[in-house]
């Protein structure tokens, strides 16, 4: 099988094994390493239809990049880095690229497990989803339930969700069950601009728009009972999946630092094929400033999902009672957009994950004790109205992808075409006909996120499983969705 060649719009792809394809470094004079994509032929067809692989080749030109620029099977065209892209740069002098993290720093997902089944929920389903929609503001300028002073915001930027515990928002167990304990090291509030502070100060506890959501789900099928038990999941059980990020604060951090790096990279002799890849050595003043601001924004995002989870628990308390709220336990919280210093292949590297999820296997020191024997939980949201998956990290992720797996289904269709294909009202009717409760203030926003605008999440997940990056633990089906 190895050696099979497929042409993309830009270069020839060589098949390395069942699920891995490569554009050799020699295909372009400026590539420092190969570009590799995890996919099968069918997914590859969708992937090569856009500019995702050309963007991946651009990533392969970053100074200090090691091994290969990688794309997960949900990869699609982004605005510099492809969404679903992974790049590791050697420290101390390999570069950090804010575009390799993206505007929504630490966009990610948090899964809550409720202490009751869908059957037990019964007629409370619609009132519960409605209560979620009342409890969670979505929009820009839609201020959340928390108004923070400047000092309080800085504490959130420094410490993440830990800073909210004193307000009764979340508990210690939530922190343990959050990637990096909910706090990236090196965060400096002073590295976050006044404008970013201004955008963020009222947005803690808001979901945002686009593909962000809060979804009530039922565990439809368990594939790995040992891991599911460790995660606290069983068939028929209710879960809530929260997808959001660092809101305007993180967006502004990216905006600020892309511009700074765009202005200084020539000083470091860096020439790039795409201005949005603007970067500087991680050890440079500009690189260190970005990493300090990015960590602060990431901590804000962890705290934001903590505040959203608190709102969900409060809604559960109002509809189902205090016992149900108290026993609603966080399964885990994972980041999709972040750069982290990790050790791979015996060296320190800065792993950029842009629309990709850390997926460390069993035995990794960074995952909580409850999960140490089964691997880190990973959550893969499907498109609206379709299944989502709970995965566990596998050893292949460390061997092949810097401890990374996919993050979602991956778009295949533009928002414009999705809107032209189906109206929001019609889509709402279709979802409701499937028994899914929908709360979304904008029909336009709904149609842009139509299920057919995405790849089949089951297919995407099957590739990362075959590739040995992560294995399926459980499948979740939607009962209700709240969108911004």
């Amino acid at each position, binding site marked *: 099988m190895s050696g099979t060649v497929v042409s993309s719009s830009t270069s020839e792809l060589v098949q390395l094994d069942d699920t891995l394809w490569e554009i050799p470094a020699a295909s372009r004079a400026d590539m420092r390493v190969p570009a590799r994509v995890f996919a099968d032929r069918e997914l590859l067809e969708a992937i090569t*239809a*856009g*500019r*995702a692989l050309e963007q991946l080749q651009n990533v392969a030109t970053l100074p200090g990049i090691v091994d290969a620029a990688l794309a997960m099977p949900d990869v*699609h*065209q*982004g*605005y*510099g880095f492809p*969404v679903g892209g992974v790049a590791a740069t050697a420290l101390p002098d390999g570069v950090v690229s804010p*575009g390799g993290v*993206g*505007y*929504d720093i630490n966009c990610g997902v948090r899964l809550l497990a409720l202490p009751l089944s869908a059957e037990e929920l019964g007629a409370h389903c619609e009132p519960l989803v409605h209560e979620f929609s009342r409890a969670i503001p*979505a*929009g*820009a*300028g*839609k201020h959340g339930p928390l108004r923070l002073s400047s000092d309080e915001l800085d504490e959130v930027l420094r410490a993440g969700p830990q800073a909210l515990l004193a307000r009764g928002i979340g508990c210690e167990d939530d922190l343990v069950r959050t990637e990096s304990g909910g706090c990236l090291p090196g965060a400096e509030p002073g590295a976050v601009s006044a*404008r970013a502070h*201004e*955008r963020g100060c009222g947005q803690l506890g*808001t979901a*945002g*728009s*686009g593909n962000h959501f809060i979804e009530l789900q039922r565990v439809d099928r368990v594939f790995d009972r040992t891991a599911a038990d460790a995660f606290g999941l069983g068939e028929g059980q209710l879960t809530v999946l929260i997808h959001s990020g660092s*809101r*305007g604060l993180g*967006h*502004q951090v*990216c*905006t600020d630092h*892309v*511009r700074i790096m*765009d202005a200084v990279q020539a000083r470091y002799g860096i020439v790039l094929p*795409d*201005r*949005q890849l*603007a970067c500087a050595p991680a050890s440079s003043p500009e690189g260190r400033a970005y990493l300090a601001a990015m960590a602060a924004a990431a901590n804000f995002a962890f705290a934001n999902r903590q505040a959203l989870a608190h709102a969900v628990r409060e809604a559960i308390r109002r509809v189902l009672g205090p016992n149900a709220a108290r026993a609603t336990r966080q399964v885990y919280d994972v980041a999709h957009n972040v750069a982290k210093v990790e050790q791979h292949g015996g060296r320190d590297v800065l792993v950029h994950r842009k629309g990709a999820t850390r997926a460390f296997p069993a035995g990794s020191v960074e995952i909580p004790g409850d999960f140490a024997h089964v691997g880190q939980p990973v959550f893969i949201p499907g498109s609206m109205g379709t299944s989502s998956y709970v995965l566990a990290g596998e050893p292949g992720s460390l061997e092949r992808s810097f401890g990374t797996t996919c993050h979602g289904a991956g*778009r*295949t*269709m*533009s*928002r*414009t*075409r999705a809107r032209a294909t189906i109206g929001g009202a019609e889509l709402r009717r279709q979802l409701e006909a499937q028994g899914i409760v929908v709360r979304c203030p*904008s029909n336009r*926003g709904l149609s842009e996120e139509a299920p057919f605008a995405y790849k089949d999440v089951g297919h995407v997940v099957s590739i990362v499983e075959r590739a040995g990056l992560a294995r399926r633990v459980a499948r979740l089906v939607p009962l209700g969705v709240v969108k*911004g």
Partner: protein
Amino acid sequence: MFGDMTPPARVAPQHHFVEHGGEVEVELEAEDEAGIFAAALDTFTELVAGNADGESMEIQIGLRGRDRTLLLVDWLNELLFRAEVEQFVPRHIKAIELEDETLQATVVGYRGTPRPLVKGVALNRLAFEQEGGVWHGRVVFDV
């Protein structure tokens, strides 16, 4: 870059969305540079405007920069910032003065409930250039 286009007698500022598998890409066209900023504003309004109108507002925007492409990004970033912190939804430019290194504008709009769709304005595929007597711009929004 934009192909051979015969310019019409007058080109009102206009925009059209381009197929993009992940984000929102838009091409802008106008008969002069100021018109590109107007077309960019129209695009932003189309992306964020909600249903309800609020009280009328007028804001002043002052920007500095020699690079027109970056000035276009700064323009949209300023509109994005005002939308988030002031809930300002722009309608149109009342006055604009574009010099070599500065942009001064008065923008008319209203306080509304802008959609929180746009996260950032990327430098990817960014363009601002004249071809065949017509000005063209291109912007990719992260959404």
